[in-house]
């Protein structure tokens, strides 16, 4: 269904009209569109029925929403709660938010009391490790690698076997540890290895 206006090519089809019916009812159409749509409605019973259906639906929706909303009211304590919240100067807290805040507060308290202790542990641990690692080796336990190798070969029992004896690095190292010291090799046994021999 469509209408022609003053021989102009202004055609309004039913699907277009149906999109504008609510606006037509609310008086929100431009004058030219309104006239065109009104003309269409005089000729199209289907669109006229659709207009009636929309008007009816709007009436039902409006009256139902109002009746449904008017069936409830805020509690009598609403003003007291608001007064308390305003006096406290804090936003209203729902139960879930209050529980979350309590958890966060507890966490912060635990963190504030535990952090110094943790820091103390870390510092103490660092001191112990540094003392153990860098404690001076007593002079009587210092072994001259050359002297030791001359008297007897160094034991390598405290060392794990090399994963691959063919690897030059390890073979060179173990050769040194067993007394076959190659002075040209860059690998030398460390003081700790010798000390714990």
């Amino acid at each position: 269904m469509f209408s022609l206006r003053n021989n102009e090519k202004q055609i309004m089809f039913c699907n277009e009209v149906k999109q504008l019916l609510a606006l037509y009812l609310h008086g929100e159409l431009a004058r030219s569109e309104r006239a065109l749509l009104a003309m269409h409605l005089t000729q199209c019973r289907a669109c006229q029925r659709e207009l009636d259906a929309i008007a009816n639906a709007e009436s039902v929706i409006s009256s139902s929403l109002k009746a449904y909303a008017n069936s409830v009211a805020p509690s009598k304590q609403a003003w007291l709660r608001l007064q308390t919240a305003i006096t406290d100067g804090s936003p209203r807290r729902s139960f879930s938010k209050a529980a979350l805040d309590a958890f966060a507060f507890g966490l912060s308290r635990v963190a504030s009391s535990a952090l110094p202790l943790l820091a103390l542990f870390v510092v103490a641990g660092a001191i112990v490790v540094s003392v153990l690692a860098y404690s001076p080796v007593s002079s009587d336990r210092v072994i001259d690698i050359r002297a030791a190798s001359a008297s007897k070969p160094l034991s390598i029992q405290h060392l794990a076997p090399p994963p691959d004896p063919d690897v030059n690095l390890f073979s060179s190292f173990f050769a040194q540890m067993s007394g076959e010291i190659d002075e040209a090799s860059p690998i030398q046994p460390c003081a700790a290895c010798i000390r714990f021999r």
Partner: protein
Amino acid sequence: MRPSDGETLEWIRRAQAGDDEAFASLFHKYKNLVFRTSFLMLGHQHDAEDLLQDVFLEVHRSLRQYQADKGAFTTWLYRITINDCLNSKRKKLLSIVSFDEITGSREMFTDSNLDIDESVQRAVNQLSPKLRAIVVLRYYADLSYAELTEVLDIPLGTVKSRLNQALHLLKSELSEQSECVTRTAFLPRVSDV
């Protein structure tokens, strides 16, 4: 735009100057507006009660910023209420609830004693939060298109398209419900078979 009445303007002026009694008067005059709008948006009285507190706390905090010449007090209140309803805290409450979730089962609607007010509210609950807001403001609060643009802070074209979309969705949902009721009204009851 509907201007605020003289009594309200006087209360606002006094409340802005720190008069607690004037603020109390504003609360008692507009608590139903905020509470019922929130109830239609959120669907639960407890949530509406919480939102009532939030909105008036916000009003109390920012009442000095309200300028009567820029718009009606109710428009300002609706704007705060709808924004609060749409904010991220309550998105879970505003998520679209399926028809069956609300009722437990669609069979409930086969009862011929279906309450039309509740069925409309259920159909509104199925809309997306933005469409729900425009339906509540238009059909409950009777706001004009111009007021809708101001409260929702969207262009007129968006107001028109959203309202049109919401209306068609509601119409089809309600007609589906009424068909469901009509169909089952003629079915024999189990006890009758």
